[in-house]
C-alpha cells in the first residue's frame, strides 16, 4: 500500500511523464510562442518603432497561422515611418562556411547601426555613406534587425519582424 507521504518513486516520475506527453500532444505550445515573446521583449525594451514587412510575396514572418516552417528568405524590404531597410540573404561562398549566411542590405539612413539578432546573439555593422552594409557569418534560422542612428539620439530604434534566413 502506498501513501501520499512516501517519496516520489520511478512510477510517479513515469506517470508525470505520461501526463506531460498527454498535454503536449493534445494542447501543444504554439511553435512560435517563444520567438514572439522574445520579439515583444525587444520591442518593449527599446521602445522601438516596429517596421512593416513589405514584399508580401516573399513574406516569411513567423505568424500565428503559419502551419509550415517558412521557406528561406531571399530578399525582403521593411518600411517604417523613419526609414526603409532591404536585406538579401545568401549562403556564404566557401566550403567551410556553407552553413552560414551572408546578408547584404541597404538602409535609407547612411551611418545607421544595423544589428542582426539571431539565435546565437547579435552582431552589428554601420551602414556606409550610401546606406549599404554587409553582415556575414550569420546562422540559419530566425533573425530580426534593429536599426539605430548613432548620429541622432532623438530617433527611436526601428525593429523588424522576425524572418527566416
Amino acid at each position, binding site marked *: 500500500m502506498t501513501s*501520499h507521504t512516501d517519496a516520489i518513486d520511478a512510477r*510517479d*516520475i513515469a506517470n508525470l*511523464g505520461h501526463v506531460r506527453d*498527454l498535454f*503536449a500532444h*493534445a494542447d501543444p*505550445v504554439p511553435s512560435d510562442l517563444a520567438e514572439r*515573446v522574445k520579439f515583444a521583449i525587444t520591442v518593449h525594451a527599446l521602445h522601438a518603432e516596429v517596421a512593416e514587412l513589405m514584399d508580401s510575396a516573399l513574406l516569411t514572418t513567423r505568424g500565428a497561422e503559419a502551419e509550415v516552417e517558412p521557406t528561406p528568405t531571399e530578399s525582403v524590404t521593411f518600411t517604417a515611418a523613419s526609414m526603409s531597410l532591404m536585406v538579401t540573404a545568401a549562403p556564404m561562398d566557401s566550403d567551410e562556411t556553407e552553413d552560414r549566411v551572408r546578408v547584404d542590405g541597404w538602409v535609407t539612413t547612411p551611418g545607421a547601426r544595423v544589428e542582426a539578432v539571431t539565435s546565437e546573439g547579435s552582431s552589428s555593422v554601420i551602414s556606409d555613406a550610401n546606406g549599404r552594409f554587409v553582415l556575414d557569418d550569420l546562422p540559419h534560422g530566425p533573425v530580426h534587425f534593429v536599426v539605430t542612428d548613432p548620429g541622432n539620439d532623438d530617433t527611436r530604434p526601428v525593429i523588424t519582424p522576425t524572418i527566416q534566413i
Partner: protein
Amino acid sequence: MTPTPTAPDGLGTLAGRAFAAYRAGERERLSELVDLVTPVLWNAARSQGGAPAMCEDAVQTAFLQLVDRADSIQEPAAVLGWLVVVVKREVWRLARGARREFGVDEVPEAPAQQLDPEAQSILSERQRVLWKHVSTLSPRCQELLRVIAFADRPDYAAIAESLGMPVGSIGPTRGRCLQKLRTTLGTDPGWAV
C-alpha cells in the same frame, strides 16, 4: 537511476541562473529563460481555462512584467514560480475582461481541465485511458499535475506553492494528487500493460 530531490539542474534552477545572469548584465540570457520556461507557462495558462490567444498574451505579458520589474524581484532563483503566478493572474484578469473590481490576489480555483473534441480525437488509446483517469481527479489536482509535469522534480514544491498548494503537501513526497493518480491508474486493468 532515480533522480535525487536535490538535483541541481532542475528547470527552476536553470531558469533562476539565466535570470540572475540577465540581471547582472548578460542581456542575451533572457532568451534562454524564455525558451526554458515557456512550456510550463503555457500549460499554467491553459490549465486556467483560457482560450489559446488569451494564454499567449498572458505568457507575453508575464515576461514583459518580468523585464520591467527585474531589479525589484527579491529572489531571482524563484523566477519560475514568480512567472507562474503572474501568468495565472493574467489569464484570470483577461478572462474577466477589463473589470477591475476584483483584487489581483483573489485568484479563483482552476476549472477542470478540458480538451477539445478535436484534441481528444488525436490521442492514442493509452492517452485516452490516462485522460479518463486524470478527469476524475479534483480540478486542483488536475491543474497541479498538468503544470508540474512540465517542470522537473526538484521544482515541484516551488511550483505547487505558486499554484497555491501548501508546500508541505507535496515537497519531496508524492503528495495527494500524485497518489490519487497512481491509485486510479493502478486499479485500471486497461492501463497496466
